[in-house]
């Protein structure tokens, strides 16, 4: 029998209904966006063409969806098979997160009915970082669908198809490691073209792709730890602490490396003084750095890494850190010049909240009906 099993619980719960309500509100404003134009629901303007729909749904959202990517690298590239039980929920979350990113991109496209131009070779501009992001994200959504297919085939006992798929899956997995590396780095490269509008503390030019990949990677590990800890608490299942503490160790190393590069750049380019400017940017930088540093301090020792609570706190801190890094660079400290300011409108926020609600609803539905979560060895959920 499989090492995975559906979580056999009721689907229609109170939280589920609440999420449904949020989804409906979001959908209402989404309809308004398509009928009356983006101006009817957003605060976008000439200086801030990208608001939370791009920065949260795509720039931050895809990084939060890097769990599948981080685990695939750990399991299949570094051959740490022991982390295998965590991979399906991570893949599902990645699929949903990237699906949301793709959907968010379409919603945010002012001329969405012409989106296919992105895929016409004679329209492509190979100098464009945005093209690379668009193509890679599209391709990666397909790859994630294929990577998740075994779960679906298993549910319907399609053994023959499962065997056929398994023969080619290794190549799909390899693509699933390459594609996020490519487009996550490109999200960073985008900041280079934005030039002087990006605050000097976040404008690192040639280092942008490296920092973007590193933060995506650390956030990937953090989201896996977060999901596993939450489902352990929320559904009273085995906490997979042993596995998670291993991931915690990798995470600490990666963050330390990231911080070294980040501060090295600031020191070498003579931007240290900006940290003490006591303005919004310096405050945001300090907050961001504190959130990055916290998991390193908390999860430094092996004993701390065996505490589920410390792991959860560390993961949450890192998720906030990575999200804030991208929010800061793309939105909060972005300065397109005098006369322009941006804060999301309520309807604009509700669309994003609605989309996230739908994402969580689908996640809950799928883990309750498909064999996604690792088999529980004690607890009430161990059905045959």
């Amino acid at each position, binding site marked *: 029998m499989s090492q995975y099993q559906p979580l056999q619980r009721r689907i229609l719960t109170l939280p589920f209904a609440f999420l449904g309500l949020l989804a409906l509100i979001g959908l209402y404003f989404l309809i308004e966006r398509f009928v009356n134009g983006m101006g009817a629901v957003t605060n976008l303007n000439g200086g801030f063409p990208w608001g939370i729909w791009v920065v949260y749904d795509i720039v931050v959202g895809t990084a939060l969806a890097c769990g599948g990517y981080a685990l695939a690298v750990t399991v299949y*590239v570094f051959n740490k098979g022991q982390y295998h039980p965590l991979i399906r929920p991570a893949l599902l979350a990645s699929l949903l997160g990237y699906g949301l990113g793709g959907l968010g991109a379409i919603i945010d*496209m002012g001329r*969405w009915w012409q989106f296919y131009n992105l895929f016409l070779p004679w329209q492509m501009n190979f100098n*464009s970082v*945005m093209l*690379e992001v668009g193509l890679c994200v599209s391709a990666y959504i397909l790859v994630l669908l294929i990577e998740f297919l075994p779960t679906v085939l298993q549910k319907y006992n399609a053994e023959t198809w499962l065997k056929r798929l398994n023969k080619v899956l290794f*190549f799909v997995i390899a693509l699933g490691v390459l594609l996020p590396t490519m487009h996550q780095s490109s999200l960073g490269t*985008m900041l280079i*073209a934005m030039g002087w509008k990006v605050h000097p503390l976040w404008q690192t030019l040639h280092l942008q792709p490296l920092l973007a990949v590193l933060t995506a990677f650390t956030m990937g590990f953090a989201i896996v730890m977060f999901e596993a800890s939450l489902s352990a608490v929320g559904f009273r299942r085995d906490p997979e602490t042993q596995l998670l503490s291993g991931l915690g160790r990798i995470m600490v190393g990666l963050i330390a490396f990231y911080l070294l590069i980040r501060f090295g750049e600031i020191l070498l380019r003579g931007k240290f003084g900006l940290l003490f400017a006591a303005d919004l940017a310096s405050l945001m930088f300090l907050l961001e750095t504190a959130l990055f540093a916290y998991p390193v301090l908390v999860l430094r020792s092996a004993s701390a890494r065996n505490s589920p609570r410390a792991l959860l706190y560390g993961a949450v801190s890192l998720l906030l850190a990575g999200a804030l890094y991208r929010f800061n660079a793309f939105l909060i400290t972005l300065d397109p010049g005098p006369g322009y300011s941006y804060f999301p409108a309520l309807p604009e926020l509700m669309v994003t909240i609605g989309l996230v609600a739908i994402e969580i609803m689908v996640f809950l539905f799928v883990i309750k009906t498909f064999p996604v979560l690792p088999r529980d060895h004690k607890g009430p959920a161990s059905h045959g």
Partner: protein
Amino acid sequence: MNRRDFLRASLGSAAAALAPGAVSARENLSPAPQAVGMLFDSTLCVGCKACVAKCKEVNQMPPTPLGDEVYADFAQDLSPQTHNVIKVFRNGSPQTKDSPTDGFAFEKRSCMHCVDPGCVSVCPVTALVKHPVTGIVNYDADACIGCRTCMTGCPYNVPQFDYDNPFGLLHKCEFCNQKGLERIDQGLLTGCAEACPTGATLFGSREALLAEAKRRMALTPGEIYNYPMGDVRAPASHHEKAVPKYQQHIWGEREAGGTNVLHLSAIPFDQLGMPPLGERSYVSISEGVQHGLYSYMALPAVVLGGLTWLVKRNIDEDQEGDEQ
């Protein structure tokens, strides 16, 4: 080569490609051979906004009212209905025109038609195209997907998206040479240059305009100069005026690779709200990084090959382990 060595080698090459220095940025692009441009001399501008009105007439855009006041155009900034605008800049108590202290000045904002345009470089679907001969940056609405990356990539916040129209498109100055208008191809001037009564907006080849700008730099403040109007190469008329105290800086000669629209002023350009740009265009750096990582997809292909090999090996090993 064993697995560990291979892993180290492939990760090493990937890291090297991501590391600074390994990716060489390209040079700035050069001006088009027969680039057309405009020279805006802020010291000549009297703020009459004839250029704003003419631009709207030529490009068939509605005037911007101020509340109920519709007798004139009150456009404050670039917008989907305004491709060209005159802004007033004040410093202290605005008493003397063109004085850096307690002064005021008029400044024109419209597309600068960069020599190395950010919008053209970042657009994923080639909706913004720099004309290879004239250097004019044109917009193709049929290609545009409305992602607005061009707006993030423009150092001057020029492209404006029409958010209030569900089928809106991007709006920017196309030198009155877009499809259906083609004033330059017909040998005419841009609307704004034609309408300007003082020669503050002067049309011509980039080369001739740059020469004119340099000539003005060399003049002595107070001496009388005969300012041309219309096309600098064949002026429609002239007028004599005392030379102001110019800033010794031709905006657009070099900024971020240069622009085809050049600006002169008696007030420092940062005070006029011009962006802090160096000589290097940002997109020459981003394209360098982009092509360093993706040229001929060679690096991705090598990495994919290595990854495929590793993943297959690791999966096979796991399965053998399971069977034993």
